[in-house]
């Protein structure tokens, strides 16, 4: 049978099995290899994620490293290199805002029930029922409890941004670390109402399944806090600051979960002490850069000295 592409038989060659093949046939064999690689990934990728999670949530993987697609939010890109993610995104964009609305409604209805039912699918079911949706609309949260907690985190981050804008923290007169402290406290206070069930939420977010999303959420939280605290640095301190803030958030969260003092005072005091430590580190860094300039001067003057001693200086001057 003829195939339109059969005319594209090009560069016949003999493969390892001794058969004559063309490049199209070898592409087909390649696709079988792709399938095998796909199966291998399916088996081993969850284990790799597990290993990454074993290193602890304080290990911050630069999530933006993995994200790189050209399609912009809302515009249909004719670019032939549209990735599979953006493909799915485009299909879902049409109904995404509506979906978000429904999701938020079910989420808000389910939150008060977390105390009785925990961060689970049952809680979402009960929440959906209480506002008149069918029980099975909990499925809008694809992975049940995990998606519930993810949505909660995302919502809290959104609230934090709103608070930062409303209270105009950015333009306040206090220094950066004070603002970081303020924002961190506000964000940690958002989990206080759900503290008894928070260990369950933390466990759900620590799973390999949700590790990527939890790192992404943490990165975005740290970025937002640093930005609204007024950090406009564009060098290595960008990374160190965000790492510090992310670490502080996790420490705060862990401390709150096991805090037995009244009003969780111990945790807030611990947070204040950590901020003071950061302040001392900053001062030390500042003094280091001042000393760096002194070192530069020393280096320059010793070079001049060597040139004088070896006669290079006068040689150059005379030879000109």
């Amino acid at each position: 049978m003829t195939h339109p592409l059969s005319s594209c038989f090009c560069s016949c060659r003999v493969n390892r099995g001794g058969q004559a093949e063309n490049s199209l046939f070898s592409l087909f064999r390649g696709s079988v290899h792709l399938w095998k690689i796909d199966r291998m990934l399916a088996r081993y990728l969850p284990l790799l994620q597990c290993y990454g999670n074993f290193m602890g949530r304080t290990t911050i993987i630069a999530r933006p490293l993995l994200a790189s697609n050209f399609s912009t939010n809302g515009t249909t890109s004719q670019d032939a290199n549209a990735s599979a993610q953006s493909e799915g995104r485009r299909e879902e964009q049409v109904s995404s805002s509506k979906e978000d609305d429904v999701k938020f409604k079910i989420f808000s209805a389910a939150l008060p029930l977390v105390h009785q039912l925990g961060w689970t699918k049952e809680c979402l079911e009960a929440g959906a029922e209480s506002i008149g949706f069918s029980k099975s609309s909990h499925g809008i949260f694809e992975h049940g409890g995990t998606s519930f907690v993810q949505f909660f985190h995302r919502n809290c981050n959104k609230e934090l941004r709103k608070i930062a804008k409303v209270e105009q923290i950015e333009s306040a007169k206090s220094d950066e670390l004070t603002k970081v402290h303020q924002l961190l406290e506000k964000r940690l206070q958002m989990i206080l109402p759900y503290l008894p069930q928070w260990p369950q939420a933390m466990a759900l977010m620590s799973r390999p399944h949700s590790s990527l999303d939890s790192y992404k959420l943490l990165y975005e939280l740290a970025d937002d806090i640093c930005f609204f605290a007024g950090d406009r640095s564009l060098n290595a301190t960008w990374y160190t600051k965000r790492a510090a803030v992310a670490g502080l958030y996790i420490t705060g969260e862990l401390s709150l979960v096991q805090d037995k003092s009244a009003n969780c005072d111990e945790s807030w005091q611990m947070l204040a002490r950590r901020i003071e430590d950061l302040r001392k580190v900053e001062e030390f860094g500042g003094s280091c850069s001042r000393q760096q300039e002194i070192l530069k001067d020393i280096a320059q003057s010793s070079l001049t000295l060597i040139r004088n001693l070896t006669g290079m200086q006068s040689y150059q001057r005379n030879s000109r």
Partner: protein
Amino acid sequence: MCYEQAQLKFVHYGCVRTCVEGGSFQHETMSLRLSPALRHLRANKFACNNCLRKKHTKISDEVHGMLRVDHAGEFGANRIYAGQMAVLAGRSKSAALIQHMWDQEKEHKKIFDDLMVKHRVRPTALMPFWHIAGFLLGAGSAVLGEKSAMACTVAVEASIVEHYNDQLRKLANDNPEKHAEIMAAIKKCRDEEQEHHDTGLDKGAEQAFLYKAMTAVIKVGCKAAIALSTKV
């Protein structure tokens, strides 16, 4: 397996295929078909289906990468001129010229700083590395002589101009109105870098010792740096 099945099995990721079955001419952009086991990874996306970051910036990840690498490039150029000045200041006739070019690079960096902050772009993680490498390149080329310093400038500026032209082309192909501000910034920088390139040639860069080899090596290094800084 027969030929047609073979064709259907192997889908070219990202290419556009026309389905002519039943007389319809439907264009379909092929996406990588994930196995059922891996599909859950794709489904386990962020709850809002869009990157959260895109909610408060209006430019795509690729433009983020462009700004990142441009910022890193201007920072590197600053450090190269700093290295050259450290060696040649007060001992060369072109010191004033190099200082002038360095001042222009400082302006470029300021432009990209503002754009980075405006769009909340992450700076490259290799900043400390470019801090040192740029200085060493500038100082090293200046130690070899004034003409070698000019040759280094010529090589670096040539690769930067090429890179900016590539970016301008990409942005123009995507959406010129949307990226107008960024394109204007890149154009300004590109024109001044071209000036630096021509100045370097005027000042006798081609008479430097091993001009061709040095420029080739520097251009390769610049290409690698650009590729790295876009992602990292």
